[in-house]
């Protein structure tokens, strides 16, 4: 083998970079996020699995529907409970603690929503 002096370190560097997630985690299995569910309410506006994957789409739909298409401000769940189609005045009614609900998963998956740039949470101190 020729050029060992440069090739071997380069290969080690390559392997190191490629496997860096393994070293970074150093085998520690992190805890799964456990969002705190509202105690007083049993039912969300849509099934849990749908909310897990698509809540952001729903929020966007509400916004466009209400603002631009003059859609209804309220909706009904499968069981007929009325709810307000609004993040600030609807969702946060039940999920009143953003940190314990939203942020658990969002931090885990490193998704930074920009909702909170404008919208307010009940408990948030300015």
């Amino acid at each position, binding site marked *: *083998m*020729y*050029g*060992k002096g440069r*090739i071997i370190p*380069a*290969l080690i560097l*390559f*392997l190191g970079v*490629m*496997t860096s*997630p*393994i070293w*970074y*985690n150093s*085998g*520690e*299995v*992190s805890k*799964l*996020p456990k969002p705190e569910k509202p105690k007083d309410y049993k039912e969300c506006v849509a099934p849990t*699995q749908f909310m*897990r*994957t*698509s809540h*952001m*789409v729903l*929020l*966007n739909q509400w916004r466009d529907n209400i603002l631009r298409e003059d859609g209804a401000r309220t909706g009904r769940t499968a069981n007929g409970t009325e709810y307000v189609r609004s993040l600030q005045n609807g969702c946060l009614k039940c999920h009143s603690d953003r940190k314990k609900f939203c942020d658990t*998963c969002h*931090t*885990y*998956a*490193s*998704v*930074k*929503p*920009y909702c909170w740039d404008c919208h307010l949470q009940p408990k948030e101190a300015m």
Partner: protein
Amino acid sequence: MRILNPFIAVLALIAVALVAAQVPGGQVLVGIILPYLAFALFLGGVVYRVLQWAKSPVPFRIPTTCGQANSLPWIKQNKIDCPSTKLGVIARMFLEVFLFRSLFRNTKAEMHDGPKLVYGSSKFLWLFAILFHYCFLVIVLRHMRLFMDPVPGFVSALEFGDGFLQIGAPVFYQTDAIFLGAIAFLFLRRVTLSNIRYISLPADYFPLFLIFGIAFTGILMRYFLRVDVVAIKQLTHGLATFSPAITGQIGSIFFIHVFLICALMIYFPFSKLMHMAGIFMSPTRNMINNSRMVRHINPWNDPNIKPHSYAGYEDEFREFMKEGGIPVEKE
């Protein structure tokens, strides 16, 4: 056929993944066993190929000099394109690897009225090649959020920068669009330019289709079909911590995505994609142009090859030399 066959191959891969995601145990196979296997083959394959290259010596110092060499002190040397020091080579390699300097230099020959051949600068290949590669890099780095916990700052920063325009929810990444655009350009270029089409092989289309498939399924997964990111991170992070588990509901699209990535990783070391490592080892680029200053050693230099000896020469022509008044060794 050169285009169709690789296309069918990629479709077949997708079909296999789709089936595998449905059958019992298939998800474990595609989601856990295959990624480990593919990653091991990728790493092992790349290292193996590089070591194979390294087994051969670089017998001669053959840099391509693209500028004025180091010569008389008052002549301005092009220290990067014709480096005479290690530092120059590092600069040259840096520009080559990170900015695709040689492609940037690209010109296009055109026949103009006359007819006259003219040469204009042609930067499109460079532009799309660099967009393609950098988008690929950003996308790969962004995916680190699924493999690392807590997510490192640079990954978040990258994600933020990439979602700068804040279009849609989940936020739309510019790199996704640019990446698809660049792949499309590289593909269309191969198909529409007759001489490029002529030189292209199935091995050129296959990775393009494969990478397109990966990007496409990824975009589909993020923006349209939607999957449970937390469940996915549990699996991917599990992979990185050797404790993988498939618990949540993960859509088939994810398994197609993963399957194609595995295919790419396995294909990588055995294909032209090895240019990733090869670019560092190209002797015309990574050598110092100092062969007149420092002797370069060729390990297989054959000392038995000697020139036709002067003695033999003189023996043959001695009489002529003497007649011509040229000094000889033996009278």
